[in-house]
């Protein structure tokens, strides 16, 4: 009897609140990540959608996909598109980062802010703005060039592979800028200086020291860009489809959207794309591990020595100004212009007389846009909050606890990073068409999708904040008599708030403009803003969609501004939390 009691109390000691929370987190993450993954893999080898009677196992879906005459061009286009975008973003982002971090170019502070702006503009809007600028028929740049040089044919055409690569790269290069600026900044100058002292010249030092040290950073930036481009949906759908240049994402979209939906083909293509992006993520993780080995950060507060460009600095500054005028000024201008005209027409003095706020008023009175606004804001708030709460607990367990199984939790949470948006959409279609959970066609399926998709971002900000919170701060609480739960509430969470806020704002921003997953999962009544923009585009209502787009961009700029303020405060906080 007594030994039994002892065993019971022993068991109670073992199963404490930490374990319960760990198990709950594993279950939640497994539900969000593993079930869609398994259903996708399983569904792709079934002859009919899961749940339908008479279905059997088959490789037909894969054979259909791979043996189709469309497959080879599809593969070729996807890779050309991915590699092209990755090279162009890399060149743009790295050059700007170098100018910003390492030279004495005038106005470079402004350039540093400008280089981040394309990232704030939703992909669908930047794609549309480039169509309005570079389309052979209505493209503003084409018309101006034809007039200026008396050309008979439009010189530029967005409906081509180079056009697609341009539109994608202009949207993506801020990421490269951020990554490369960080590596340029953390480079230990004494490594270069000791090379100079060993007798190497500027060029020799650059080739023998700077480049080899930056190589892992180059490699990982390029891999990320390749993955992002091959997963991109907006440019392939809006530019690629009319041009007849199909890539994986647009082909999957077509397969679901033809009638009846070809789930088998969508599934096998989705798995193929998932494999490609997973390989990319795998090599990226390996590259960044190597980058850490090369870590040149000394942790001391030093500023890298700036390179004096001499007279060239004015040339570089001028080039940057022209670049930003073209890549930020023109797209924003064309969106603004279109949002004020009653029917889409090319800017002219005559047309300027017709400018009015009618489109904005229309947006407010159009029931679908109001529903979309409500849905998007609701999803933004709930997704950001739930994702950050979930990942805070997961990050704490993964970083601080000694519970077995924490490593697995970390890996699980990171898996969605390899899921292209459209693949996640296909997987969730499989899951909720088959499972008896009635959220298909509602806003809840979008919420589940967003949480799954943004968990990796959440875990990244929370775990990097938690690593900075010294364990002794929590141990001091335990020795003050506080239980684990009390310590988490009173010490860990308050210290986590700055990172929490930063992650929250980021997830809020990206979920507000999400398109590639939503496009497969929305239904009438659960439209979100980017879906409405997409529909308006398909319906040719350019002025209305531009008004809506300008409103979206304003909201995002506001969020980015707050994020920047919060980010500044985190900097201060970090010093005090060791």
């Amino acid at each position, binding site marked *: 009897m007594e030994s039994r009691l002892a065993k019971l109390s*022993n068991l109670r*000691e073992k199963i404490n609140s930490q374990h319960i929370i760990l198990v709950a987190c594993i279950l939640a993450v497994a539900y969000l990540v593993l079930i869609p993954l398994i259903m996708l893999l399983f569904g792709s080898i079934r002859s009919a959608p899961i749940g339908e009677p008479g279905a059997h196992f088959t490789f037909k879906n894969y054979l259909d996909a791979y043996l189709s005459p469309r497959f080879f061009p599809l593969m070729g286009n996807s890779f050309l598109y991915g590699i092209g975008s990755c090279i162009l973003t890399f060149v743009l982002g790295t050059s700007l980062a170098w100018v910003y971090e390492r030279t004495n170019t005038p106005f470079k502070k402004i350039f540093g802010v400008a280089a981040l702006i394309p990232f704030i503009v939703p992909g669908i809007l930047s794609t549309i703005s480039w169509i309005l600028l570079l389309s052979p028929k209505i493209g503003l740049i084409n018309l101006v060039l034809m007039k200026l040089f008396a050309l008979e044919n439009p010189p530029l055409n967005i409906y081509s592979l180079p056009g697609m690569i341009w539109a994608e790269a202009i949207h993506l290069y801020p990421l490269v800028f951020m990554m490369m600026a960080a590596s340029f900044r953390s480079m230990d100058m004494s490594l270069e200086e000791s090379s100079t002292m060993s007798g190497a010249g500027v060029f020799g030092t650059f080739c023998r020291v700077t480049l080899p040290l930056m190589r892992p950073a180059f490699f990982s930036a390029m891999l990320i860009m390749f993955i992002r481009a091959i997963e991109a949906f907006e440019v392939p759908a809006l530019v690629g489809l009319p041009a007849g240049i199909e890539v994986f994402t647009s082909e999957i979209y077509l397969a679901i959207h033809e009638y009846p939906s070809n789930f088998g083909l969508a599934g096998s293509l989705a798995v193929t794309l998932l494999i490609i992006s997973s390989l990319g993520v795998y090599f990226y993780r390996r590259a960044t591990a190597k980058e850490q080995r090369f870590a040149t950060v000394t942790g001391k507060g030093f500023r890298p020595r700036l390179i004096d460009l001499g007279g060239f600095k004015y040339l570089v500054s001028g080039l940057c100004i022209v670049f930003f005028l073209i890549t930020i000024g023109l797209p924003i201008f064309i969106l603004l212009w279109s949002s004020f005209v009653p029917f889409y027409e090319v800017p002219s003095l005559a047309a300027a007389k017709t400018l009015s706020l009618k489109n904005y008023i229309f947006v407010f009175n159009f029931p679908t846009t109001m529903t979309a606004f409500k849905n998007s804001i609701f999803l933004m708030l709930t997704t950001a909050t739930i994702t950050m709460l979930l990942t805070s607990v997961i990050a704490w367990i993964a970083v601080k606890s000694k519970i077995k199984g924490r490593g697995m939790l970390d890996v699980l949470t990171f898996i969605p990073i390899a899921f292209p948006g459209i693949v996640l959409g296909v997987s969730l279609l499989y899951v909720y068409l088959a499972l008896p959970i009635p959220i298909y066609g509602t806003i809840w399926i979008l919420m589940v999708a967003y949480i799954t998709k943004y968990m990796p971002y959440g875990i990244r900000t929370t775990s990097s904040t938690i690593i900075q919170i*010294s364990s*002794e*701060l929590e*141990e*001091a*609480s*335990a*020795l*003050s*008599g*506080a*239980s684990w739960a*009390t310590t988490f509430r*009173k*010490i860990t969470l*308050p*210290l986590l708030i700055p990172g929490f806020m930063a992650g929250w704002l980021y997830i809020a921003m990206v979920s507000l403009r999400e398109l590639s997953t939503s496009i497969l999962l929305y239904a009438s009544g659960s439209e979100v803003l980017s879906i409405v923009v997409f529909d308006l585009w398909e319906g040719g209502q350019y002025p209305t969609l531009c008004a809506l787009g300008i409103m979206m961009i304003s909201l995002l700029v506001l969020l980015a501004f707050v994020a920047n303020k919060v980010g500044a405060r985190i900097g201060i*906080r970090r*010093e*005090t*939390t*060791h």
Partner: protein
Amino acid sequence: MIEISNLGKYFTGERETVNAVDGVSFFVPEGKIFTLLGPSGCGKSTTLRCVAGLEKPDAGEIKIAGKVIYSARYKVFVPPHKRDIGMVFQSYAIWPHMKVFDNVAYPLKIKKMPREAIRKKALEALNTVGLQGLEDRLASQLSGGQQQRVALARALVKEPQVLLLDEPLSNLDAKLRHQMRTEIKELQRRLNITTLYVTHDQIEALAISDYIAVMNKGKILDVGPPVEIYQKPGSRFTADFIGQTNVLRGKILSVEGELGRFSTPIGEMVTMLPAGGVTGGEALIFIRPENIKVFKDQAQATGNNFAGAIKVLTFLGEYADCKLQVGEEVLWARVHPLSPLREGDKVYVQIDQDASFSIPA
């Protein structure tokens, strides 16, 4: 007060298991400061964290005031928040999101004491460590020394049975370290609180402790009061670790009561016999540099004395370090900073028979 027996803590690495704490036993009497001293990685901090409950040991038993708080055999492990212990961390661990007052009041709030009592006690504790008037500051507005005092106040405020200090002075500059060392000792004497102290600094250990345990590779090598540990270390490691020591290998030629005549590389000398030393036995003879006298004139040197030469003389302010060549051996001595000795001088080195000690080799 604190009883530790056969404590073991093993970390399983990728290739091997590390015995961080390997069968450590000691006893801290009530109201005393007991110091665990050793190089980094010797297991002293792990031992302290086992007492705190921040690490779960793998073997042995820990008792505080007669109550078992950990026992491997009876599977007892009292979690840290249920132990009656105050602890000061190396980083101080002052919570940056709370004011000084809230930091110190935290343990009392956890105990759910009435508000008025919390206020009174927390202010009292701040007073004790000399921080009256700073209760509304944030941690980031405090200097290192002040943070240290907040940490002390927080550790003491709930009047624990035991105080644990984990390298509390290592983040302070040299002057402040000296001052806080004395203050901690005074405070401990005044409150008469049983204290376990961990440091790698031998001077700090000698200055603050009632007892010192020297640790290396997870084991305790020597335990005793500071003077005993310094003057009569039981192992070569202790002798080397605490202060600078000259070591000579000697063979016992003859025994005369407690003294023995040894043959050493620098010549014959008479000194204390090691425990169980018999004629023909081998021993290690330790001589502290401050116990070596250096004379220019052989007439002044008495007892054991050897001819040698000064290789290097380094002026260090309070004394001068003297590197001597005696026969084939190098000996270090400390001489008065203003001594007339010069580098290159031929000198006579005197080692008094009661100023050295030996252990079996």
